[in-house]
Structure formats: structure tokens, C-alpha cells
């Protein structure tokens, strides 16, 4: 009664041939081997689950012979590539950037071909050579039978009764008491993992008279040397230029402004001064380079906007007005380092920072 004879075959409706999803030849149905009843799930035709044994010949023998050659070729190529890896390892030296490049390319190419050759070969072997079979396996109820559960409960109850765990509360309670310290001990012995923070987060190594050194060259700076407006340089404290533990808090960014551009209002935190023009020297200002968000060095200085941008999370500070926060997640301005010149004319710190440097912490205040 169907009037789509174009797509009807002799055996019933046959879907039109398509590239993807063309129905496969019916795979042989095997028993699942676990002894359970194998219900023929039906695969469009009647199938008896009688064919228990896996066939040991390929479905399409002529094609299988071709496939065998392809698989063998893949494995041979993998073998050659594997030997190539060993040869390249022995033959190619490393010891410079170019040599490392050549060696990496050769070794990597050889390894890739060896692995992919094995992969292709194995896959074509499965798909073209092995006969197409399908197994229907029955799932078993995960839930144990009531009888099993009852038996388990019975054994468990028997054992509990024999141990008299329930009947003798003193044993029970003292047992639990005894294990409590043992559970706590692995945590307790971690105490010496590190020192207590104490007040170390509140101070840096900057102190009165400590010179500002240019990071890298470790040379001190006079205002005359740093006179070009729009200048910026990274500074480390004298005596600690190679100490990363101290540099984490003590790194400083030094910026030179044109006359009249720098305008830091005097700010206090309670009775402590935390920013003022008195701490600048000749329109040169020093801020902590450690971002008040989570501690990355705040380093992008834009001369034209006098903004300092932290590249980690884009906190932006205005260097001309005391490093106030313009944008981004930083909660506080960058602390300003009190600065003056010493007798030789070099820039030195007047004192330590007057507030804790870097990211916030609970006890900060």
C-alpha cells in the first residue's frame, strides 16, 4: 500500500542509501557466556541466539586480505618509525636551541608515526578483519535478594552480639575516646610546617636610610639621574636585592612626574599618615610595587594617563593622586614609600611603609 516504491526492496521497506548510517549487515548475535538466558532482542529479522561461537573468519574475505596488507603496512611503518626514534636519539645531539629543535622534531615525528601506525593498524584490524559480532548480555539486578540481605544482617547481628559492643557501653565509649587523639595527631604534627605569621606581614625591610637600588644593575639613584619626566623604574632595597622572600613585599616602583602633575593629598589611617607629598622628592614618587589585590607586581605604567595597571587582574591605580584605585578588584591604593635623599644625594627611604603592603589579610585592621 505504500506508494514510495523507489525505496522499497523485495524484503520490506529499505531506507534509501545514505552515506552515514547505512544499515550494516546484520552482525552475528552471540550468547553472552554468562549462563543467563539470552533473549533475542530482535534486530529486524528473527535471530536465534544459537550461534554461541565467535566466527574466526572475516566477513568479506577478499576485502579482509586487502585489509590485512594495510594493517601489516601500518605495523611495518610503526616499526621503522620506532627504530627511527632510537636512531635519532643516538644520532642527534642536544645542547643548543637549534639542536634541541632538530632533536625534538625528529624524535617527536618518529614517536608520533610509531604510535599512530600502531593505532591505525589495530583499528583497521578490528573493523575490517574481525567478523562483526554482537553480544546481548543481561543485566543483573544490583539489589541483593531479600534472603541475602537477611542472611547478611543475621551474620552482622551475630557478630555484633558476640563482640558485646552494644551491651558494654564503657568499652564503646572509651574506644572512641582513645581514637580521638590519634585522629588529631596527623593534624597536630603539621604545626611545624611553618612559622606563625606573627607581625611579619605588617613590615618590610625598608628602614630609615636604606638606599633605593635599580633592580638588575643594583645601582643607587639620584634625582638628577632620574630626571626625565615620565620615567619609571623598578626598585629593590639595598642589602636585599637577591632575597626573594623580602622582595615579595619590598619591591618598589619609582615614577618621575612633570612639575605640577603630582598631587598627592595627605591621607591618614587613624593617626597614621599613609600618603603625602612630603614623601616625594623632586616630583619623584615611590609606591609599593606589590598589588593590594593578590600580590602581583603592579608594573604597567602609562606615562600619558599616569595610570599603573596590574596585568594580573587589571587593577588600575592613579599614580598622580597617591595610587588611588581607578578600576579593578584592588581594594586599597598602593602604599607609598616615604622617601628622601641621603647625604650623598641618593634616594633613600625615610622609614618603612606606614601600612602593611600587599594583599589583605584578616588581621590587617
Amino acid at each position, binding site marked *: 500500500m505504500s506508494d514510495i516504491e523507489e525505496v522499497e526492496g523485495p524484503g520490506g521497506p529499505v531506507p534509501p542509501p545514505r552515506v552515514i*548510517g547505512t544499515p550494516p549487515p546484520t552482525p552475528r548475535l552471540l550468547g553472552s557466556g554468562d549462563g543467563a538466558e539470552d533473549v533475542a532482542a530482535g534486530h529486524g529479522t528473527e535471530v536465534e541466539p544459537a550461534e554461541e561461537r565467535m566466527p574466526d573468519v572475516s566477513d568479506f574475505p577478499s576485502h579482509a586480505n586487502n585489509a590485512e596488507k594495510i594493517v601489516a603496512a601500518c605495523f611495518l611503518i610503526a616499526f621503522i618509525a620506532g627504530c627511527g626514534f632510537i636512531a635519532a636519539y643516538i644520532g642527534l645531539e642536544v645542547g643548543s636551541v637549534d639542536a634541541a629543535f632538530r632533536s625534538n622534531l625528529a624524535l617527536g615525528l618518529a614517536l608520533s608515526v610509531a604510535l599512530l601506525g600502531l593505532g591505525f593498524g589495530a583499528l583497521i584490524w578490528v573493523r575490517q578483519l574481525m567478523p562483526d559480532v554482537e553480544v546481548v548480555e543481561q543485566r543483573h539486578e544490583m539489589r541483593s535478594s531479600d534472603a541475602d540481605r537477611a542472611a547478611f544482617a543475621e551474620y552482622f547481628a551475630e557478630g555484633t552480639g558476640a563482640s558485646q559492643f552494644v551491651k558494654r557501653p564503657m568499652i564503646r565509649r572509651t574506644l572512641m575516646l582513645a581514637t580521638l587523639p590519634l585522629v588529631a595527631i596527623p593534624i597536630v604534627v603539621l604545626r611545624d610546617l611553618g612559622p606563625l605569621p606573627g607581625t611579619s606581614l605588617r613590615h618590610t625591610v625598608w628602614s630609615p636610610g636604606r638606599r633605593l637600588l635599580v633592580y638588575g644593575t643594583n645601582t643607587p*639613584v639620584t634625582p638628577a*639621574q632620574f630626571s626625565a619626566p615620565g*620615567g619609571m623604574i623598578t626598585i629593590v632595597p639595598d642589602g636585599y636585592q637577591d632575597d626573594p622572600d623580602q622582595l615579595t613585599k619590598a619591591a618598589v616602583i619609582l615614577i618621575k612626574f612633570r612639575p605640577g602633575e603630582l598631587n598627592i593629598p595627605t591621607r591618614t589611617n587613624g593617626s597614621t599618615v599613609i600618603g603625602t607629598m612630603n614623601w616625594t622628592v623632586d616630583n619623584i614618587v615611590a609606591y609599593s610595587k606589590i598589588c593590594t589585590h593578590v600580590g602581583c607586581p603592579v*608594573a604597567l605604567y602609562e606615562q600619558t594617563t599616569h595610570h599603573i595597571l596590574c596585568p594580573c587582574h587589571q587593577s588600575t591605580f592613579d599614580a598622580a593622586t597617591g595610587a588611588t584605585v581607578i578600576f579593578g578588584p584592588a581594594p586599597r591604593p598602593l602604599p607609598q614609600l616615604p622617601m628622601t635623599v641621603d647625604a650623598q644625594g641618593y634616594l633613600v627611604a625615610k622609614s618603612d611603609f606606614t601600612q602593611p603592603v600587599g594583599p589583605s589579610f584578616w588581621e590587617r585592621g
Partner: protein
Amino acid sequence: MGWINARRRRPVAGYAALLLGLVVVALLYGALTRTGAQAAPTTAQQNIANGQALFQATCSSCHGLEAQGTDQAPSLIGAGAAAVYFQMSTGRMPAKEVGAENERKPTTFTEQEILDIAAYIQSIGGGPQIPTPAQVSTAGADTALGSQLFSANCAQCHGFAGAGGALTYGKDAPAMTQATPTQIYTAMLTGPEAMPVFSDGVISPQAKRDIIAYIVQTRTEANPGGLSLGRTGPITEGLVIFLGGMGVLVLIAMWITAKRREPWDVAQQENARAGQSAGTSGTSGTEHR
């Protein structure tokens, strides 16, 4: 000639003629157009008068006839030859748009013209000078120190390998793949646009050479691990692992689990057999009422 003539009607003749024409035009273009400043300049024979004339013809419309500045462009008095050299040799000046950030572009001035203008600006206000070839030579430089200085003062804008980076409000720090040693030196010295100034007092000429040597060596060294993926870090690595790695693997997984198909020739034979036997019985369904 006869050889060419005999083959003039072949299809390949058209392509050959096109290729020849392209090559000729390319050669003419290369010969006739002027390229920008390339090598380290020498300061000999700078003609200040020529520079003044060029300045007044090209630059004074924004910078003022005496280079005193207008509301469109800043004063160049005190800017120095180095600033002029940097801006003009990278093509940033003459600016194509007032107020926008200037990008590197090919310059239409010759090296000599740039030097002349630079000499003129130097003469009217002084300022940082163009470095000598010895000052920008990378021979014997300490690239280890250069790496320290670069990473502490340059990498935050220009990227750890000089691939460039974003600044605020749409500006960006350019990549350092094309800058010549002199351009790098003069940029450090004069702080163009948003870039800070790194005067000789804090980064000495020797230190500048070290930084330049580091930059040059970084950008010319091979990527031993393969393609560089842009030298911008894990972002591109993540893109590659998803689009390249997972994408390709998903396709392979589809291949592994695809249903087995009959080989095409076997299917064809079956279809042929089916077609023969269906030829008599297959048309029965025309009646549909």
C-alpha cells in the same frame, strides 16, 4: 622565440604570461619605491637646513612652524633627535590621525631625510641624541642582565617574549618583532606615547645594549618545541588542546565506533541483485486510494 610562439596557444601560456607580468611589476615596484630607514644611522652629513625645510613642509601643520606645538600636537623643543628618529623611522609620524594611538607603518621618508629633521629638532631645543652604532651593538652584551631588566620593566606591557600586550582604553604595547636596535634604544630613551622614559641615568647605555641584545636574541631564536603558538602563553595552548586535540580525537572516536558498512563493491552487487528481482514486483504501490 619560435619556441615560445609555437606554444602560445597552450593553456599554460596564459599562466606563464601572468606570472611573468607579476614578476616584472614586483621588480619595478621594488626598484622604484623607497623603503624606510633600516640600518643604524650615521650622524655624518646631516643637513639641518634640509631638515628645517622638510619639517616646515610636513610636520609644522600639527607641531607648529617653530616646533612649539599646537593644540593638535605637542611641542618638540627638547624632544631631541632620538624621539624624531624613533617616531619617523617606525612610520608613526606623520600621524595619520590626531589623538589616536599611532601604530607602526611603512615610512615614506628616506633615512637621510629623517636624520636631517632629527638634526633640526636637536638644534632648536636639544634633547636625547640618536645612539651611535657602537651603542646599539649587541656584541658581547650580557643577555642575562638584559633578561632581568626586560622582565622587570618591559615584559608587563610588551609580553615576556615581546609579543605585545593590551593597555587601558584601547591602547596597546606593540610587538617587538620588527623594531631595529636603534629604534628600541630611542624608544627606551624617549618614552613614546604611553611608554615610560628609561633615561640613561637609571638604565645606562650599557644596560640598554643588554636589553636590546636580549630582545634580538629572543625574537630570532628558534622555537625548539615546534610552532610558537604566538608566544602569548597558555591561552593559545588551551585553544589548541580543545580545537586540535579534543576535536581530532572526537572524530577518531566516531571512526572507532562507527557501524560497519558493507564494502562498496559488495553493496553494489547486492543492490544490483535487488534491483533485478524488484523490477517486476516493485511498482505495485502506485494506487494510493
